[in-house]
């Protein structure tokens, strides 16, 4: 094949991308902050554990020297604090990554996993179990029902918006709106028939919390979170191309429909797993990818891992705040993230308007 050589020698493309150099540094800084925050959270609480003891116990369990602590601090650390910190980390990473994926798949900075019905669908399952008193799987019933109905709802949204082998984004989003409203009505109907105890349990579940954390919950989330987090980066480059629009992405060789099925499934797994163990924790998936995009540009090869780390950082810090700010009482984590997240989002909105004259 011949190539079209222009008559004059091509000038080199000028690189004016100072943001590019910031990416590895930012990712490293986020990771360090996450580790520091996780250690702080593991040591802080009603029973304080000094950092030295904490590291010694971690090293001991990893067979790297160190020493076991006395019975009480060892038990507090390994049965209460660490599972909670690890769960916060996993849920945060899942929500952050799912948020970045959703925005990329829909080419819309305002999309979040909730738009495809995964959160409200999960809530229907959980609320139905609580209100109807179902306990086929014992204490796991609510978690399993939330996960299953979250996935089922996404499947329904996708199937309903498909026509002729293709899915239009607008149809998908509008179907999500309709299904969300339907789920809201179902929850309302269930609450209408519920007794007071069930209503307060539902309310607490919907506020979002990690207070029921334990290693079994960590193990329940881990495979889904790991699967979703492992699949996401493989699609980073193709998500960049999708920003050009569906047709241009297809012209560049992307199998758009297949990619969308894979990524919507990944979003559903990540979010459903998070919702199942922690209830509805809003705004992490929306705000974290936004903030990172502003700091270091929209390239998904950076954005996907950074959103996972950033989401984990926000939830570990948020959960630490939730259980220490009003100690000995515990604030609901979902309330806290939305309470801080929404004004922050508003600030981002104003700032973007000022700088670029609108969302872009």
């Amino acid at each position: 094949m011949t190539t079209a050589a222009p008559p004059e020698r091509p000038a080199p493309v000028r690189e004016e991308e100072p943001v590019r150099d910031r990416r590895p540094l930012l990712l490293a800084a986020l990771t360090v902050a996450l580790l520091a925050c996780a250690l702080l959270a593991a040591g802080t609480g009603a029973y304080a554990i000094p950092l030295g003891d904490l590291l010694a116990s971690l090293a001991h369990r990893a067979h790297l020297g160190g020493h076991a602590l006395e019975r009480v601090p060892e038990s507090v650390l390994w049965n209460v604090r660490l599972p909670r910190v690890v769960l916060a980390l996993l849920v945060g990473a899942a929500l952050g990554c799912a948020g970045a994926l959703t925005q990329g798949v829909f080419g819309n900075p305002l999309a979040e996993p909730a738009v495809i019905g995964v959160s409200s669908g999960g809530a229907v399952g959980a609320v139905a179990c609580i209100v109807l008193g179902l306990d086929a799987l014992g204490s796991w019933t609510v978690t399993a029902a939330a996960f299953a109905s979250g996935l089922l709802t996404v499947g329904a949204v996708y199937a309903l918006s498909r026509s002729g082998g293709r899915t239009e984004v607008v149809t998908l989003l509008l179907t999500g709106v309709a299904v969300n409203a339907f789920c809201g009505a179902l929850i309302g109907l269930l609450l209408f028939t519920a007794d007071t105890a069930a209503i307060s349990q539902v309310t607490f579940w919907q506020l979002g919390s990690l207070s029921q954390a334990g290693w079994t919950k960590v193990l329940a989330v881990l495979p889904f979170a790991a699967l979703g987090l492992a699949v996401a980066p493989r699609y980073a480059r193709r998500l960049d191309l999708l920003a050009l629009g569906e047709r241009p992405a297809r012209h560049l060789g992307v199998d758009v429909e297949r990619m969308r099925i894979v990524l919507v499934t990944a979003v559903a797994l990540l979010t459903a797993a998070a919702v199942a163990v922690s209830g509805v924790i809003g705004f992490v998936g929306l705000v974290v990818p936004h903030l990172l995009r502003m700091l270091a540009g929209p390239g998904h090869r950076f954005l996907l891992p950074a959103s996972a780390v950033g989401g984990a950082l926000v939830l570990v810090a948020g959960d630490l705040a939730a259980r220490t700010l009003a100690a000995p009482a515990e604030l609901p984590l979902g309330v806290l993230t939305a309470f801080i997240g929404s004004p922050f989002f508003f600030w981002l909105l104003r700032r973007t308007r000022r700088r670029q004259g609108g969302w872009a």
Partner: protein
Amino acid sequence: MTALLEAGGIGCTVGGRELLADVDLAVHAGEILALLGPNGAGKSTLLSVLAGDRRPDRGEVRIDGRPLAAYRPAELARRRALLPQTHEVSFPFPAAEVVRMGRAPWTGRCSAAEDEAAVARATTATDCAHLAGRPFTALSGGERARVALARVLAQDTALLLLDEPTAALDLRHQELVLRIARERADAGRGVVVVLHDLTLAAAHADRIALLDAGRTVATGSTREVLDAELLGRVYRHPVEVLAHPRGGAPIVLPERPRGAD
């Protein structure tokens, strides 16, 4: 001449309305084929059929002798590129990054140096080296159009489909775009370009396919197709075809009522 692309008996029906009927078309290496016709004639529909976006209800499109349906998306992306009419990017990617996206189909098949060279050639040719670091979303309409063209050129395909590439451009950049199309054709590529400016088509195209109501009413050299009587009938407006005083290329003007003089 070898046909890069052949379309035979293409028909598309949507909601009982025939968008395309019995369209035959061949694009050869080394030529610019202009698709002309009034609004709603089916030019963009035909282009999306040729690009493989829309499966025709009747007929078949072949690229390099192989039916479109037999290609995997990535294989097709190394053979044809399409410049769409509108240029949107959902997130503020820098213009240089947008141009580089054109190299995606060649990932793993080209060295980084070849990729960079293709990007640099495309960027220089379209006069957008100075836009490299700016976010695409902050560019003007004409700048976006040139960056989008650079992306399509960087894709480096034997077949280039351009949907109204001159619509948002000033006079200088209109000429620039068609000169690039000419260079590509001279280098052995095939170019299909949808245009509204008949004089522009006359000056740059080798052949013209004239569409009306989903059918090709004429295909041939510029002088054959740019006939005053035929154009008047197709566009439902009387036109004059003049010859350029130097070279004799056709100039097409709509007939305008003369002011009282």
